[in-house]
């Protein structure tokens, strides 16, 4: 029998593809079912936030940050206001700091919930997606009450927060915590033991800590390799040094570790929320800030632990009320860089499993 001639095939996954979580395009070079090369094409959602920010006052940039990582907008809000506050050395009232921590950790939970739902949807399981949305809905409802929006919060201000918590809000959060713990248990029952799921994720897409650091990964993508690095602990900001929580780490650096760390981090976030709700003092929510914000001339960088990794804001001020240059270090974008080397030699069916576990948000990749 004559030998069958084979050739490589180019295939586009995306930009309109449900499993790329937005508008990411992967140009995949295939040899049969095996991936030879992957070239991620980003930029379909680029809005030029950094350039727009050069023409905006610092307060006006806050609503734009909502639209970067639209699953964890509170953390984005905080990254910006924190950078400006550090630069201007402003004093933030205690209550405002506590409110910020509560909403940030709730937002982290909401973001991780959506990761789990969307990831399982990628792997072909429909029901977890519907279950996690019920819990996420409760968090969004809480946010809607405190800041009047469900996704684009625009809640934080330089020097504090926009609104104090409405009456009874803290109690509602306290009631939510045990409910969420139950839900996490339910998710473990539903997903973690499932053999089909385990076969899809165990040992898939593994890398070691050295590779992760070489690619400057952060967040769960770094911690899944066993490297303990969380900015809330290693470089404490806000009032995180007052809370008792652990940094869960994985050990194999595969997709399963990344999945399980999301669940474990949610539990730790719940612990922080619980402690913050118990400790929150009365008082003002807005500090004394000048009407026009003019950070002294210089370069500033501040990074926080976002839902996906180190979310940094670097800006250059020339002493005016608008930044000379503003740069967001978006964890999704940085974490995505590992993807091509991770996918080489893999089976085509694993592409979605590996891409999903990186947990990217395209609003943040393209900024």
């Amino acid at each position: 029998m004559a030998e069958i001639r084979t050739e490589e095939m180019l295939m586009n996954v995306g930009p309109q593809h449900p499993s790329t979580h937005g508008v990411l395009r992967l140009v995949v070079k295939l040899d049969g079912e095996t991936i030879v090369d992957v070239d991620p094409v980003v930029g379909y959602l680029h809005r030029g936030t950094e350039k727009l920010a050069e023409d905006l006052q610092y307060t006006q940039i806050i609503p734009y940050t909502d639209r970067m990582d639209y699953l964890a907008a509170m953390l984005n809000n905080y990254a910006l206001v924190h950078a400006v506050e550090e630069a201007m050395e402003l004093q933030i009232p205690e209550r405002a700091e506590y409110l910020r921590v509560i909403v940030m950790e709730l937002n982290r939970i909401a973001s991780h919930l959506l990761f789990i739902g969307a990831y399982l949807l990628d792997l072909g399981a429909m029901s977890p997606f519907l279950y996690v949305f019920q819990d996420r809905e409760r968090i969004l409802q809480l946010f809607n009450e405190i800041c009047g929006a469900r996704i684009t919060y625009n809640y934080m201000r330089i020097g504090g927060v926009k609104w104090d918590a409405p009456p009874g809000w803290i109690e509602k959060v306290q009631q939510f915590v045990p409910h969420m713990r139950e839900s996490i248990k339910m998710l473990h029952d539903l997903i973690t033991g499932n053999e089909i799921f385990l076969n899809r994720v165990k040992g898939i897409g593994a890398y070691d800590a050295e590779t992760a650091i070489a690619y400057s990964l952060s967040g769960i993508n770094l911690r899944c390799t066993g490297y303990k690095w969380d900015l809330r602990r290693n470089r404490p900001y806000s009032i995180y040094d007052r809370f008792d929580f652990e940094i869960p780490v994985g050990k194999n650096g595969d997709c399963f570790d990344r999945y399980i760390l999301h669940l474990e981090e949610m539990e730790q976030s719940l612990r922080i929320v619980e402690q913050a709700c118990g400790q929150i003092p009365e008082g003002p929510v807005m500090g004394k800030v000048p009407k026009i914000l003019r950070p002294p001339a210089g370069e500033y960088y501040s990074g926080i632990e976002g839902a996906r990794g180190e979310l940094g804001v670097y800006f250059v001020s020339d002493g005016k009320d608008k930044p000379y240059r503003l740069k967001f270090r978006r964890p999704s974008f940085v974490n995505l860089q590992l993807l091509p080397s991770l996918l080489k030699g893999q089976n085509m069916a694993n592409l979605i499993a590996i891409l999903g576990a990186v947990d990217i948000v395209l609003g943040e990749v393209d900024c």
Partner: protein
Amino acid sequence: MFGFLKGLAVTISRLPKKKVTLQYPEVKPEWPERFRGIHEFIPERCIVCNQCARICPTSCISLSGTRGEDRKLRIDTYDINFEICILCDLCTEVCPTEAIKMTGEFELAAYSRDQLYKNMEWLYQNYLRHSGAKELEAGTGETGGPGEAGVGAAAGGGAASEQKAGGTDE
């Protein structure tokens, strides 16, 4: 096999639970008080300080006013372009007289782009539909007693400014 069945048990235990889906167009969601929906505008309260137009990150507000005989500034036109408005609430935050506020209204879909330009009259009508109606019910309305008087005043104001504009043309 055991883990798989455990998951199935969760699914089955969920079957008799109450549905959480909202049948949207038939059933409207209930928004909290702070919900940031489409704006409402109360012309009588506006002092034409221009702060809302300046703070707007997308520059979607344009307004103009004239100085009346009593040296007070009066708003003439007030337009919001909802094509680019991002409902960030900064305009209501800076407004010193609460002339511009946000309502629970959120349905903005339109058949043409032009329809998304909302003028002062539309925004005032939106006020009457939302806060105005509530304030009248509670008897704390800015315009005092009857709603008709308020509408009349605003409409009259609009007519007057039109007349004035007509006058300058002649």
